C-alpha cells in the first residue's frame, strides 16, 4: 500500500514537471479569431475638473483642470503603427531583438532598493519573448492575427511613456487614472460595487474567455469587450466607467506616470486577466521597475482637454 502511494506521488510529480517543460515548445506567435467589439479605440473621454473620492479610504481628492483619457487601452495595432512611425523618425532602434528608445534619465535619491535610471537607451518591448503580439519583419512592425484590437502588452514603462510622448500626450497620473475610473462617487469598480465574469476579464472569467478563443491559457480580451454585447454565446455586461471608459478594471494592468521620490518603481492600476477580483478594485495598486514588461501589463494615455482639436 505504501509503495503504491509513493508510486502515485512520483507519477504525479513527473506529470507536473513534464507539463511545465512541455510549454517550452509553445509557439512564439499565436493566431486567434478576430472579435469585433464595436468600440472605437481612437476615442477619448473628457474628464471634467473637480473633486472626487480617492483611495480605499475615500479621501477627498481634487484635479483642477479638465483632461481627456483614451476610452480604451492602447491596442497592438496602435502600438505597431507608432513603432513604424518612430522607426522612420529614428526615435526607436532595434537592438538584440529588443525595441529600444532614449530616455533622459531621472533624479536618483540613492534610497535603499531604488534603481538608478540613467540617461540612455532603455527597452520598450522585447521581440523574442513569448507573449509579444508584435512582429518585426526587418522593415516594419505587424500584429499577430486576431490580436489587432487587444491591448498591447509586454511594454515597459519606457515604451508606454514614449508612445504617449510621441503624440504629445502623457501617461495618466495615479490621480487622473482614479478619477477617470471612479467618477465622483465611492464605487469599488468602474461600473459599481459588484463584480462577476460578465463584467471584466479577470481570474474568474478565464474559463469562458479561453473557450471563446479556443485556447488553454488565460488571455487578454479585445479592448471594450465588456460592453453588453454577446460574443458566441458569451454575454457581457456594459462595464463602462462613469465617463464611458472601458477596461478600467481587468484585462491588463495600466502603467501610470508618477515618479515618486526615493523609489524607482512605477505604479500600475486596474488589475488584469490573471488576477483575483480584489486586484481590480479602483484603489488597488501594483508596481514594478520601469523596465519591467509582462503579458498582463499595458497602458492608455491622457491629454489636456485643449489638445483635442490639435489632435483631430
Amino acid at each position: 500500500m505504501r509503495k503504491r502511494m509513493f508510486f502515485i506521488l512520483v507519477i504525479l510529480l513527473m506529470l507536473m514537471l513534464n507539463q511545465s517543460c512541455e510549454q517550452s515548445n509553445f509557439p512564439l506567435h499565436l493566431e486567434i479569431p478576430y472579435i469585433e467589439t464595436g468600440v472605437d479605440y481612437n476615442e477619448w473621454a473628457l474628464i471634467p475638473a473637480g473633486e472626487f473620492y480617492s483611495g480605499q479610504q475615500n479621501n477627498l481628492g481634487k484635479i483642477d483642470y479638465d483632461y481627456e483619457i483614451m476610452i480604451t487601452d492602447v491596442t497592438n495595432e496602435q502600438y505597431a503603427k507608432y513603432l513604424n512611425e518612430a522607426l522612420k523618425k529614428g526615435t526607436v532602434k532595434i537592438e538584440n531583438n529588443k525595441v529600444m528608445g532614449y530616455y533622459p534619465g531621472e533624479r536618483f535619491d540613492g534610497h535603499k532598493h531604488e534603481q538608478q535610471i540613467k540617461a540612455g537607451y532603455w527597452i520598450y518591448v522585447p521581440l523574442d519573448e513569448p507573449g509579444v503580439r508584435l512582429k518585426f519583419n526587418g522593415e516594419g512592425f505587424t500584429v499577430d492575427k486576431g490580436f489587432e484590437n487587444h491591448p498591447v502588452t509586454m511594454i515597459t514603462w519606457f515604451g508606454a511613456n514614449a508612445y504617449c510622448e510621441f503624440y504629445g500626450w502623457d501617461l495618466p497620473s495615479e490621480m487622473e487614472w482614479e478619477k477617470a475610473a471612479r467618477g465622483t462617487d465611492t464605487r469599488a469598480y468602474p461600473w459599481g460595487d459588484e463584480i462577476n465574469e460578465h463584467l471584466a476579464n479577470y481570474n474568474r472569467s478565464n474559463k469562458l474567455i479561453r473557450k471563446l478563443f479556443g485556447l488553454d491559457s488565460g488571455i487578454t480580451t479585445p479592448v471594450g469587450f465588456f460592453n453588453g454585447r454577446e460574443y458566441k454565446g458569451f454575454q457581457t455586461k456594459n462595464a463602462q466607467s462613469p465617463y464611458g471608459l472601458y477596461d478600467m478594471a481587468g484585462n491588463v494592468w495600466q502603467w501610470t506616470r508618477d515618479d515618486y521620490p526615493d523609489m524607482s518603481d512605477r505604479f500600475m492600476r486596474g488589475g488584469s486577466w490573471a488576477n483575483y477580483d480584489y486586484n481590480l478594485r479602483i484603489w488597488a495598486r501594483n508596481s514594478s521597475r520601469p523596465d519591467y514588461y509582462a503579458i498582463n501589463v499595458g497602458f492608455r494615455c491622457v491629454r489636456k482637454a485643449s489638445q483635442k482639436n490639435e489632435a483631430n
Partner: protein
Amino acid sequence: MKFFIERFHFLFKSTKGLVLVAIAMISLVTAIWGTLSGPLAEWGIKDVTVRLLGMKLNPVQREGRIIMLYHAIAMAVMAIEVYFITSIVQIKKHRQSIINATVTVGYLCAMIFGLGFAYFGYNWTFHGLFLFGLSLIFFSGILLAEALWPWRKEYRVSNLEYAHTKKGVDLERIAFFAMTLSALGSAMFGAVAGSYWGQGHQTFLAENLIRIPYKTPFELAVIGHLHIMLTLIAVAITLVVGRWFDFKGVFHKIAMPLMIIGIIIITIGVWIIVPYRPIAHTIIYVGSVFIMLAALMLVIYGWKKLIHDRLTEQGITKAGFWRSFKALLHDPIKFGPLWQMVFMNFTVSGVGIFMAAKLDEIFRVWPLREERIVLTGHWHVLAGIIATIIMMYYADIVGLKGKIRKWFGWILIIGSDIAFASATLFSLKRLFVKQYFQEPFTKWSMLFLEIGLASVLIILAMLLLWRLFDLFKKEGVWKKELISPKLEASKTTVLPGVSEEGKQ
C-alpha cells in the same frame, strides 16, 4: 440535564476539552472562511457560502475583514497554547482555572463577535464585544505572567538535569515567562496603533506597503506587531513541544538561555522599529538566530530520544544507521513536530533568507503583486506548520494508538509538507518558469497544494467527528479525559504548595 452538565464540564473545564473546543472552532472557521478565496471561490462555492450565511462582503472592507479573520484564528491558537502552558508548567490549580476561563471567554468573544462584525453587516455592538474579548485575552496574559513568575521558591528545579540558574531558578520557566511578557507588550503595540484607527491610522495589509519607502509610525507598529506575535506563537509551541518531550540534559541547558536571549533580542528589535527602523531588522535577525539554535537543540535532543526510546522498547542496545533511522520514524506523531521544525527552514526561514539576500537582484525586479505572494505565502506556511504541530500534540493527548496513530501522523506530515512545499514553489514560480508558461506550473502546484491541504483537513475532520460522536457515549473517551485531564509532561516532581490538575 446531567448529560449536558457533564459534557460542559469536560469541554470547558478540562484542558483536553478546552483544546478540543478551540480546535473545533478553528476548524469550523477554516472550513467556512476557506471557501471565500482561492480555488473554492473560483468554483463558485464562495457565492453559495455568502448567500447561505447572509454574509455582507463590501469590496472596500476586504482588508478589515481579513485582519479580523487573522485575529479570530490567532486568538483561538493563543488560547490553545495557554491551555497547554497552564497544564504542563507548574501553576497552582486556582490560577490555572482563572486563566483558562478568562482566555476561553476572551477568544470565544473575539472570534464570534469579531467575525460577526466583519462579515455580517458591521454591527458595532459586535465590535465592542470583539474588543472586550481581546481585553480578556490580554488580562489572561497578565494572569499567566503572574502565575509563571519564575523566582518563586516553590518553582525552583529539584532535578538538576533541567536548565537552571545557580540558585535553582528554572530557565525554561523564565523562557515561558519572557515569551508571555513579550506577547503582552507586543499586543499593546498593535492595540495602541489600532486605537488611533480613523485618527491618523487606517486599515491596511502589511504586504501592500512593502515597497513604500516611508511608513507612518502606526504602520510600522502594526507591521512589528503582526510579525512578533506569530514569532511568539511559534516560540510558545516550541517550548510546549520541549515539555512534551521532557527536554532536559545538556541540550536543554544550552537551549534555554539561547531561547531567553533570543526572545529578549527579538522583542527589543520589534519594539524599537518605530524610532530605529534601519537597525531594527538586524537586531531581529540576531534574535532569530538564537531562537532557531534553541529549536535546533530541541530537535537534536528529541530525535535522539525517539531513537533511544524505540530501540530500548525493542531491546536493542546497539544499532546501525538504518535501524536508528527506522526507530526515528517509528512514531510519526512524535517525529512530526520536530520534523516540521526542520522542514520550516526550507519553506519559511530559507525562503526568508534567500529573499533578503536576493531582494534587489530578483524580488524587486518582479512586480509588487508577485513579491506579495512570496511574503504572504511564507508566513501562511509558518502558521500552517504551527497548526500541524498543535494537531500532532493533540493526537498524542487523545491517545491515538496503533495503525490509526501512524496513518494520522504520516498523512498529517506528508499532506501538509506537500501543501507547504507546493505553496512555496508556487510563490517562487518566476524563478523556474517564464510568466507566459506559468499556467501549467500554477495548475499543478495548486493541485498538489489542494491535495495536501485536503488530506490534512480530512483527517482533522475525522478526528473531530470521532470526538463529536464520542460525546454522545456514556462512557466515552471524554469521560476518561474528564477523570484524568492532566497532559503528560513529567518534568520535576510536584513541590509542596503546587497543586497538580487531576489530583485535587
